[in-house]
């Protein structure tokens, strides 16, 4: 494939790599955030307002991926997702291996984003006065109705922040992802791993372009978070 001279109208290899990495980053980070959110939300709800030793230990244990080297998390995932691992395709009866697929990247990025989502969501739930939940119950609403009708709307600001923080963490994830999903262009290569690959082979210009795209993506994510927060504040004050 030519390096730079390409026919007019067809994308250059750099732009094709960038577009693919951007697309994969968005896809993987979005799905990873959803995965982390799905697991973290009920746990955060359960852990909020709990001060017992057991709850604290669980909370600390669940936060460990945040302080471990990403490669260590990747190694553990590698063992778990190996074909004959505890959650490998053989055990689960799936036709193909998880490893070196974008799905593995979703799992790795989800695991790395999980502690941030959990901690931010827990803080959001803790901001909701538990006595409001009691009032809601006395007004005839079940615990689930109270959660959906009172707690979630009041925690929405913090939960939005949790989603954005989780997304940015998943989008920038490298160590764990590259361990289980590799760095395969057009298949598992995200912006983070593409930057690494470019600078490894001395393609500084490509790396700079990719960094620019990553910056734009991060800026967009943070701007969205700011917008969500200000919208929520406006709604509260109106």
């Amino acid at each position: 494939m030519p390096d730079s001279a390409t026919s007019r109208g067809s994308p250059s290899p750099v732009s094709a790599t960038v577009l693919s990495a951007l697309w994969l980053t968005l896809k993987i980070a979005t799905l990873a955030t959803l995965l982390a959110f799905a697991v973290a939300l009920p746990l955060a709800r359960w852990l909020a307002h709990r001060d017992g030793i057991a709850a604290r230990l669980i909370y600390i244990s669940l936060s460990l991926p945040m302080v471990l080297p990403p490669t260590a998390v990747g190694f553990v995932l590698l063992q778990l997702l190996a074909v004959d691992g505890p959650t490998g395709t053989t055990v689960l009866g799936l036709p193909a291996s998880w490893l070196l697929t974008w799905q593995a990247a979703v799992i790795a990025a989800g695991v790395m984003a999980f502690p941030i989502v959990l901690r931010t969501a827990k803080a959001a739930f803790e901001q909701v006065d538990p006595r409001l939940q009691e009032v809601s119950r006395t007004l005839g609403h079940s615990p689930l109705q109270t959660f959906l009708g009172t707690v979630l709307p009041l925690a929405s600001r913090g939960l939005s922040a949790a989603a954005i923080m989780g997304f940015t963490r998943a989008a920038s994830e490298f160590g764990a992802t590259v361990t289980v999903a590799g760095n395969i262009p057009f298949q598992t290569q995200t912006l983070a791993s593409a930057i690494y690959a470019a600078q490894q082979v001395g393609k500084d210009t490509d790396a700079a372009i990719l960094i620019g795209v990553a910056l734009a993506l991060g800026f967009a994510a943070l701007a969205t978070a700011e917008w969500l927060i200000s919208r929520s504040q406006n709604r509260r004050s109106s």
Partner: protein
Amino acid sequence: MPDTTLVLEQLTLGVGDLTIELSCQLEEGVIGLAGPSGAGKSTILRLVAGLEPGATGRLACGDELWLDSSSGQFLPPEARRIGYVPQDSLLFPGRSVARQLTAGRRLLNASAREQVIRMLELEDLVERASDALSGGERQRVALARALCADPRLLLLDEPLSAVDPTRRLRIWRGLGRWLSERGLLTLWVSHDSTELQACCQRVLMLDQGRLTADGEPAEVLAEAALEAGDGIRNDLPGYDNVFPCRVAGDEGAEMLLSLGAAGPTLRVPGRAGAPAGQALLTIPARSVTLTTLAPGLTSARNTLPATVADVVEAGELAMVEASVDGLEAAIRVEITRRSLEELSLKRGDTVFLLIKSTACRVLLASKVSTPTPT
């Protein structure tokens, strides 16, 4: 109308250092819960509301068993159909007043809700955001929210404490009618003895989680006032002066009350009947007029010579403590600062107290046993 008799049998709950232990039956009407701070009044409301799942004992409302710790039965709050107004109002943030009023799963019909809005004077607030309301407005909205949820039992924790006095008076009247028309059993926590007397048919006096008195509001409150103030008085409005007395007889349409063995005899409206005996007399401090010259004929039925024992100034008001021969405790008289200045009162001055007989309350309390006038 469904039976909502509340039966509490050996209801027990430990909260920090406090242990609630309560057994009683509450049939109907508005029942006040009074007592010092930390007596467990609010906790009892929470317990009845089902917000204290750690409680033991038995609690039933009509035919429904809400709690029976021996069989492990516990009905959650949402199934109890209660209206609960917590002390801090606890409106849902970010919702308009209109949305607060329709927050209940069950709701009164629209016309009854309109009635509640009018009764609690919320017409001008309905479209407003509840986050911008004052303390008194929030309390009225919280009360309306509870009423609009069509409860069969109302639990009110100082629901109008921040509402201005004039409006509170109007609300007492309207709310009293509303509750009695619907036969809604109401437990009303209050520190305001005037409120308890105005709104409640019965008062439970609590101390350290236990029931210490139960009966007609004036009697229970007077008894508590007597105990709280070294047997003579306390700071409850209307109970500034509480004296044990003996019904000495009557003259025409007036009772004669002897205050202490060597104290004065006061006249109050009513007949002693038989048997005449021990009673309590309450004299509101603001219903006593004070003069420095012996009055001529006045409409006040009681005039007592006294000596100024102390003057305590508080803002625009002053409390004059006037000693009367034969009475161990002084009679407290509330006057304005301006009156104090014009009368130039100081300790040791001779004054005359004019006490309107209609402002005095005589409590022929069967429970009253202390202190006995000698």
